[in-house]
């Protein structure tokens, strides 16, 4: 309403913009703080008043990936000069590296488990979504709600019997076990989201293809699937983030071999050798990919967080 805007309204508008900018800054302080702590020297992480300006260093990240012991005596100059850059950082902190930390392994577990479960859930989910989107089925809505309802269950509720079953068949603390659970977790999401995307593709395309002699499967494979590429990509990223972030099931079903990063990072806090800068470094590495994905996904966020119920 360009003409009816009074000076008062324009002033109000300016104030609102300033408030929004301030709020955004305040909102991002926690994220900034964890990010900056990951690059702080240990002595600057827990100071009063909090240290805002410091010389960033990579020591917390080196500590994250290594196990170290306190240096007993000063390292000789030749040994120091011959050391790699990360060893020097640890020497500077008065410690020496003895071996790798399990962090890399846990991080790798997170990637493998989230990745494979996403592929499985998305594959199954895309087929199922097409089935629900294009064909009639008795009690269709009931089935769809059954699928959604599996996502409503609190993880702790299903975890008790699943733990016992997994123990019987040897899936406790295994990659396969967690992949299975995350596939189930994401499957309902994939079906709902992909159905939303496929409902938007006009059926006329497939009808034309069928008239041209395509089989139904070819029509799905060659017409519908390429059309839903954006939807598939968005759904994949959402599923990956869900599995990546999952904590409760990982806590209950794994303890070492197949443990993912979310239960591992907090468990390090009490273990003596680890300080807050290291925890922050782990958190930073863990959250950074999610932040990138959020920017990639920004146009689909609304749809994603409401199971495709609301589309813009």
């Amino acid at each position, binding site marked *: 309403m360009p003409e009816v805007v009074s000076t008062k309204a324009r002033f109000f508008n300016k104030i609102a913009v300033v408030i929004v900018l301030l709020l955004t800054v305040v909102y991002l302080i926690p994220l900034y703080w964890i990010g900056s702590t990951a690059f702080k020297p240990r002595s600057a992480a827990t100071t009063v*008043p909090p240290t805002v300006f410091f010389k960033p260093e990579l020591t917390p990240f080196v500590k994250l990936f290594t196990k170290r012991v306190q240096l007993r005596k000063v390292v000789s100059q030749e040994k120091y000069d011959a050391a790699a850059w990360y060893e020097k950082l640890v020497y500077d902190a008065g410690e020496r590296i003895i071996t790798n930390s399990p962090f890399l392994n846990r991080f790798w577990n997170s990637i493998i488990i989230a990745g494979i479960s996403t592929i499985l859930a998305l594959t199954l989910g895309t087929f199922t979504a097409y089935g629900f989107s294009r064909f009639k089925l008795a009690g269709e809505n009931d089935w769809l709600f059954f699928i959604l309802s599996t996502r409503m269950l609190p993880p702790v*509720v299903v975890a008790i019997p699943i733990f016992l079953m997994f123990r019987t068949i040897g899936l406790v603390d295994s990659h396969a076990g967690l992949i299975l659970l995350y596939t189930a977790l994401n499957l309902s999401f994939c079906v709902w989201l992909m159905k939303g995307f496929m409902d938007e593709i006009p059926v006329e395309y497939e009808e034309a293809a069928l008239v041209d002699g395509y089989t*139904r499967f070819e029509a799905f494979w060659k017409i519908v699937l390429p059309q839903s590429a954006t939807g598939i990509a968005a759904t994949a990223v959402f599923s990956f983030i869900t599995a990546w972030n999952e904590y409760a099931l990982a806590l209950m079903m794994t303890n070492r071999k197949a443990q993912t990063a979310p239960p591992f990072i907090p468990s390090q806090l009490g273990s003596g050798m680890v300080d807050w800068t290291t925890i922050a470094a782990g958190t930073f590495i863990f959250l950074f990919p999610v932040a990138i994905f959020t920017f990639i996904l920004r146009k689909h966020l609304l749809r994603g967080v409401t199971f495709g119920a609301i589309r813009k």
Partner: protein
Amino acid sequence: MTTNAVMARGGLSDLSIRNLFIIPTLVFLILINIFPLFYSLILSFADYSAISGKPPIWIGIRNYRELLNDPHVWNSFYITLKYAIISVFGQLVVGFVIALLLNRKIPGKGVITTLLLLPMMMSMAIVGLFWKLLYSPSWGIINYLLGIGKFVWISNVDVALLAIAITDIWMWSPFVMLLSLAGLSAIPQHLYEAAAIDRASRWFTFRRITLPLVSPLLLIAVIFRTMEAFKTFDLAYIMTGGGPGTATELISIKLYNMAFPQWQTGKSAALAYIVLIVIIGVSNIYIKYLNKAKER
């Protein structure tokens, strides 16, 4: 649906394609989610510990009777309810206010919105972990910025639950904001123009145009968040572990402690069923409204 009229030539029939596409998913979900629930239903009638090595002893409904007479269980439900109310109300207010402020021409609006949405995409466990750092009484940045000295948040019986709720509000207000923005942007501009011509006050316009038109989406946001608040485990478990004492022992934490550290498998299966019944009640409401929203 109309494609059924066009017969596919050759290949699998539509019917078999449909079954082939849908049935595996249903079977898989039943196997992973429903079958275990039957198993735990049986266990809930037994005195059984998964690590004792002794077989289950059938005790009828004693587990349920004991749980429903246990003040700690009721207390956990009460804490959960309190937590859900505080955090959902907080998210509603903060999220909606930010959406109202954002709903105008702002340079870099897209970037600002996405930045604000970052917290909700992150792992609850990891967010809980780093908020512990922020809440630290002696060197945490929250006490410093608020200038309240060495105020104890997390190990303080009176404010621990609030501290978790604040973190939850920080994390999930953007969710309410996102839905509100969708609702606000869908309001036809001519309604506001008409109101301006009638010299309606700002407050009147807000109450009679903005609020009623956004409320369906706000309702969905509230239902989504209430469900999640009721299920909260990660955040509280990482931040307080249910403590101090039982001050933040949400029902899911109570259930976890009973099932895993204490290994009261039979009894925890019974509690899981009680929780499940409550969840089913809540999610029925949720699904009803979600359906309504889809029909709009």
